[in-house]
């Protein structure tokens, strides 16, 4: 074929393909790229949401560096993430392993374990507020947890779980893990089901026990899936927001602040949109950094 004609055909094909992706690309640009770039632009300005913007250069970022409440909030999100990575994912993995075996009513368990993630975070917050209610009426504990602790002979453990700075964040982290473990469970169970059963049989013939099979067969085969769960857990936990609002409103002083509540507060309570955008940019960089580190660690583990 004549090279000129060939080039024209290729160009035509490319153009055609471009028109096919154009709608999706336009939507992506309008709803993702433009707001993202605009957010970076706004982070260099002082703006109250309406009216003129004032360019302030790096002033918002400079302010953020010395804002201890902001860095505390990142620490709080990190703590929630740590609990989710350990407690939530360990629970999800254990239950996925149990449901991967031939046990009775395993379909029922799969459905039950998947109920918390499909509930709205507001609903979960309301339910747990009732469970953790610290009040008493007519000598009876209103909250289910305190009632159970009291009636089962542990009155010394009765506590104001969300009203005490020592327990509030951990309580939120546990509720967050309770709500989130179902996702990990489903993904990990799906991963477990892709492992060829012959590998288990081969390990058994080689004399491997349950622990050896777990460490030498299941873990290596599941590493890519575990990585996905870890990254999703990090991203989901660092961005926890609705649950906190539903459980402690604007927060227990600053003990339950996380980055998203700080960003929201900067916009909603103090109308500092530029500062909020600077917080969002820094937070985005933290998330990218943490996810990148998780990926690197996982790649190293795969090589080992």
């Amino acid at each position, binding site marked *: 074929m004549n090279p000129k004609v060939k080039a024209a055909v290729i160009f*035509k094909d490319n*153009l*055609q393909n471009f*028109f096919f992706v*154009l709608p999706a690309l336009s939507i992506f640009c309008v709803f993702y790229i433009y707001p993202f770039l605009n957010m970076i632009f706004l982070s260099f300005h002082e703006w*109250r*949401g*309406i*009216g003129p913007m004032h360019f302030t250069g790096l002033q918002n970022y400079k302010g953020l560096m010395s804002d201890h409440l902001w860095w505390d909030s990142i620490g709080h999100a990190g703590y929630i993430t740590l609990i989710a990575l350990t407690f939530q994912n360990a629970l999800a993995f254990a239950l996925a392993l149990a449901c991967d075996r031939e046990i009775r009513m395993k379909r029922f368990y799969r459905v039950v374990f998947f109920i918390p993630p499909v509930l709205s975070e507001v609903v979960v917050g309301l339910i747990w*507020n009732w469970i953790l*209610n*610290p*009040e*008493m*009426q*007519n*000598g009876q504990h*209103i909250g289910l947890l305190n009632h159970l602790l009291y009636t089962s002979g542990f009155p010394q453990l009765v506590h*104001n779980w*969300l*009203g*005490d*700075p020592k327990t*509030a964040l951990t309580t939120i982290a546990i509720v967050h893990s309770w709500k989130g473990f179902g996702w990990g469970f489903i993904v990990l169970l799906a991963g477990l089901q892709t492992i060829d059963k012959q590998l288990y049989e081969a390990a058994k013939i080689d004399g491997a026990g349950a622990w050896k099979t777990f460490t030498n067969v299941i873990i290596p085969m599941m590493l890519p899936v575990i990585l996905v769960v870890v990254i999703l857990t990090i991203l989901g936990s660092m961005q926890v927001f609705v649950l906190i609002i539903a*459980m*402690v*409103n*604007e*927060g*227990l*002083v*600053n003990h339950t602040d996380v980055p998203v509540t700080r960003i929201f*507060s900067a916009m*909603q*309570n*103090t*109308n*500092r949109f530029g500062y909020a955008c600077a917080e969002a940019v820094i937070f985005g960089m933290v998330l990218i950094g943490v996810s990148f580190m998780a990926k690197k660690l996982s790649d190293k583990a795969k090589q080992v």
Partner: protein
Amino acid sequence: MRKLAVWCTCLILLSLTGCSKPPEPSNKIYLWHWMTDRNDTFQKLAQQYKEETGIEVSIQLFAPSDAYSQKIIAAGQSNVLPDIYGILDKKSVVADFIKAGLVLDLTDAMEADGGKWKDSLFDKALADKSFEVGNIYGVKPGIYGVPIDVTNEQLLYNKKLLAKAGIATPPRTYQEFIKDAQILRRVGIIPFVSGWGELWLLDCFASNYAFNIMGEQKVFATFRGEVKYTDPEWIKVFNIFAELHDKGVLMDGIVTKGNKYAEQDFALERAAFAFNGSWCVNVYHDMNPHLDYGVIPPPPMSTEWPLKIWGSAGSSFMVNGNSPNKTKAVAFLKWLTSKEQQVVLSKETNNLPSNKEALLGVSPILRDFATGMDQSTHPNIWPLNEDPSVSEAFDKGIQDIIIGEKTPQQVSEDVQMVKDSQNRHGN
């Protein structure tokens, strides 16, 4: 292929033409609001208005109020506001909307016919969205909002629970209030609840006593930076919360409690006193129609200065300054705030009417709330407000005192530190 390209180009051009088309006057006006409890009544009134005038009012509800607030800001930025809307934000944000030309100055309409419309409404409700000569926001003086109801925040008491504890009359002083609370605690009744997980309500209670202890001029002088938060009288204000905590007055978990939960606690008779706004009449009625309660201003601590409660327009509507239907929108708001419609709104939603003439038709408890309007004030009508970052430190500091983490002295120093830092940055 060529056809596809032509179609795509046409589509884009068509949508661009649609975007740039200027709005035209019509017989349909749009109103956006956030009041879930009033939506049915608004719809009914809109229907009635259409029958009377032929003008259709499309009432659109966007709840909750936080989401509504964000929607209004976004719509303001892109100039797609409806003909009538409300701004739920601080006065500085209202000022920004006005300066951007998004709010119509209603002064002339209010003062037409010898000021008949203006005079029919509560002054303090009108002041909420009005700007005085020489205001600090740099806004042209005038009236920019129409209050459709008024609200104030006071102390509610459960008559049955007080009687059960042998308390015959509600407290008249702060000292009596503490004494009554201790009696209630002794008989196993939780004395006091409020939604202090919502900082504004905590701020409201604190500022009531700040006005009472040091007078409003000293409060404003603090905002200007002329008085420090470490002043003994401010420490006295912080001490109130330490005392409320130490003497067992407050319900457990009050600092993380949303007002909806606090309302539930009072309505279900779990606490004898509550600090809440006049909208609670409707809420309590829905939760417990047999609740027997009364209302008083928070009992004063000092006799030196009057205790002022927060009270102003509960909800106000603005007319879009860029609307092609400005005249029709103003006419509708005038009709909505006339005596007849205000009586309907008040009866069906248990809110205080903004029209003074409509007060005769309201329930006794609402009338009691209405008497509080005489001693009311509101941040929106103050000559200046505290910096939001300082307010946040102030409110969170009070939470710190309530949970026993900090002393009033420590909190006063913390708040002053934030204030000093704001002053250094020239805010």
